[in-house]
């Protein structure tokens, strides 16, 4: 079965990195990219000149802009498209996949006011059931360069995790198994808000003490929220939780982090987003999570502070002062179960 092709739907930088991992030892991989010209270029150059050009693609990797051609021979399908486009792509895939297929998405994000998770979108739009999520501290550039890294594949179906692991695992890439789809997906979403806060802290010139505080207490908030959504606590202690949070919050390359830095420098959200070609996921996430946490009565002071900073026009200093003021509450406990606020 080693020669059965694996599909990657989406040719952005993360999709390209996954195709790079899958295609080692010339294993057959089919990658779908929107643009036929790009597909031709990928096949000629054996790399993706537009996204992540540093990643070499194995001899077995074939790009195509024809979804049905890509999906037809593949039982295992990695879906790696931006969260905004996932529903349309899933809808287009629906006619080509049946209940025998395995879908693993690697998209960190939410859809709409209802906070629909990506696996839920796949479930709604296709008839597939064997669905999983891949998430972890995986900066595409580092994967392409071959730095050792690890990730998590979570699914309710043991078979999905097995198949996904078998396809991806290599001498410099580890894959851990999980059953907690909810926690794995939320970890990848929530960390972006904390990354904004980390950027602000850096922009204001604070050091590692502040950073450690934000990351640690940010994790407590993420966990608290995740528990309310039905996630398991240990998922947040793993690669897709604290792992991804650390990588994002300490990486100056992360878009969310850069938003935070710019905010600290006094730029308005409008100017910042105009200057970026891709929207930082964390801005939208802050809005959605803030509303949902409010409805569910979940105590999330960092999300609250970032929300006020982004949407209520307070200064970074005032947001920070707010955040520090919570400690005047004598009941402030470190436990993630603490809901005092």
């Amino acid at each position: 079965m080693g020669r059965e092709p694996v599909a990657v739907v989406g040719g952005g930088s993360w999709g390209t990195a996954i195709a790079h991992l899958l295609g080692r030892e010339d294993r057959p991989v089919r990658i779908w990219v929107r643009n036929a010209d790009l597909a031709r270029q990928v096949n000629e150059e054996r790399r993706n000149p537009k996204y992540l050009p540093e990643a070499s693609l194995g001899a077995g990797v074939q790009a195509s802009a024809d979804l049905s051609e890509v999906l037809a021979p593949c039982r295992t399908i990695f879906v790696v498209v931006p969260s905004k486009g996932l529903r349309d792509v899933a809808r287009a895939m629906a006619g080509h996949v049946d209940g025998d297929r395995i879908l693993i998405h690697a998209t960190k994000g939410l859809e709409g006011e209802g906070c629909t998770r990506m696996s839920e979108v796949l479930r709604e739009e296709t008839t597939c059931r064997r669905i999983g999520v891949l998430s972890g501290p995986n900066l595409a550039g580092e994967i392409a360069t071959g730095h050792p890294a690890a990730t998590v594949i979570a699914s309710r179906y043991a078979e999905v995790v097995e198949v996904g692991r078998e396809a991806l695992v290599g001498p410099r890439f580890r894959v851990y198994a999980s059953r907690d789809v909810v926690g794995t997906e939320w970890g990848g979403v929530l960390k972006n808000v904390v990354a904004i806060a980390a950027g602000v802290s850096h922009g204001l010139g604070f050091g590692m003490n502040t950073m450690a505080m934000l990351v640690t207490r940010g994790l407590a908030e993420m966990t608290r929220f995740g528990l309310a959504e039905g996630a398991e606590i240990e998922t947040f202690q793993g690669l897709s939780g604290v792992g991804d949070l650390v990588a994002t919050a300490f990486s100056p390359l992360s878009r969310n982090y850069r938003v935070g830095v710019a905010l600290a420098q006094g730029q308005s959200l409008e100017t910042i987003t105009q200057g970026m070609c891709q929207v930082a996921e964390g801005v939208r996430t802050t809005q959605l999570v803030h509303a949902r946490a409010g409805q569910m009565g979940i105590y999330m002071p960092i999300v609250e502070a970032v929300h006020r900073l982004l949407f209520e026009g307070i200064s970074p200093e005032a947001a920070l002062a707010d955040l520090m003021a919570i400690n005047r509450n004598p009941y402030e406990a470190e436990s993630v179960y603490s809901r005092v606020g």
Partner: protein
Amino acid sequence: MFTTHGRIFAFNQERDAILQEVVQRRLVAHGRNPDRLRLDLNDAAFTEITRIEEAGQTGGKAFGHWRDLYRRIGRLDATGLETELARLVWHYARDVVGNFDPRVYGFATRVVPPALSFLWRPQFNWSRLLNLSTARERIRVQGPIDRIRALANQGTLILVPTHLSNLDSLAIGFSLLTQDLPPFTYGAGKNLFFNPFISYFMHNLGAYRVDRRLRFSLYKEVLKTYSQILIERGYHSLFFPGGTRSRSGEVERRLKLGLLGTAYSAATRRLQAGASRPGIWIVPCTLNYQIVLEAETLIEDQLKREGQHRYIIEDDESSRIGRVFSYGRQVMNLDASMVVQFGEPMDLWGHQVDCEGNSHDGHGRRVDTRAYLCRRGQPCEDTQRDHEYTEELGRSIVDAFHRNTIATVTQVVAHAVWRLLEARFPGADLYGLLRLGQGAVLSEAQVLEAVEHHRACLHRIAEAGGIGLGHRIRTGTAEALLAAALASFGMYHQRAALARSGPDLMVDDPKLLLYYRNRLTGHALDPLPEALRRTVAEEVKIGT
């Protein structure tokens, strides 16, 4: 006039083959693994010895056998262990297996419905004894019956009803008969077989025996295997997925999925044997009573043992023939005193199914269900996968139960009054409300306002497809609902949940009120209007 088709009419010819298959499969499942054999035998022996000791029946023959086996297990080799296992599996499989006698069925189809009519009529009347019209007026059966009938001829149906009362089986049997649906096999508690008269019918109408006292895995596996083989061979089966009657009166929210899970293995084996599709469909069904025979005992049991499980009530209203008769005479005299609502049939993945047995997803697309049981196009068993499918199916069934619930006047009024009690005694917990609510007097105007609020709210939910409404709720005013509910509350129970007290209304039995109110708790009705809650809280008016 009644169905004479369906696999079950050939059951007796297959009986021995089925038994042998049960034993065969259990032995194969154990392999020749001595550790596993020893573990299961030890588990059975230990559980049984403990149970018999607790029941104080240590003098019996069974106890001696188990004690003897328990001592020998450690010394047995693989062959010896296998022999013991085979012996036990044979024993329990024979104990479980049912019978189906077409003559008894024919007799029952002629006699049972008129007998039901007789039970449910206040006066004996020869001319009406010979037709079904009376029971038909009392028990309304509705739903996509034509489609269910069409599917019954093309595959295996698994009927999953809600469970409130021991009369449920009767009501379902009646519905199947009158709708020309084939008989279903089902597992009935062994305690129901103690009565020789009922036992005779149950035993010969395809019911198999489930001894709920036996808790060891070997027995449960025999049951599951038996059920799986029946489904696989095309016998329509009935499970109460709630496992037991709902004690609280709520619509089932957590299901026992063990037997339901066998459907996936059955489907896989059918595909492996060459079938083109699984051909097994789920039919959810709700039983909606205005007044429940055992309401008082059930809610009492729920309150006493909140949070604990108790499966067998040995003595309740249904075992007291006088109560059953009084129930029949009084309650069943109500117009449409119960509604049996069949839900949309679905496949094992919760998709809708059309008359030809084709599945369609939420977007109306055809679904190839075979693919769910395959790996690379080949059907293959996967216990873990099927376990997840079962869990998801359980959620679809719970949703279907809620959508197909038919709200009745007793539930709506009880829900409204309970909300008023909550407003009057803010901060009181459940037990506080039961204590304080006893004898609470409410003004009729307030009750009517609360009932009207609930009526409007239910109409909204019903329009969105979230619940069904009984005839009265569909058409009646709040006044009419209240009057009908008071009449129902007043007729059968020892004390009324709610009764008139001069110009006002009084809560006479808060436990019953809670019981009837619970049926609607899964439907998230809007809270009472703020103004009404405030008025009620301010004006504390305690009755005598």
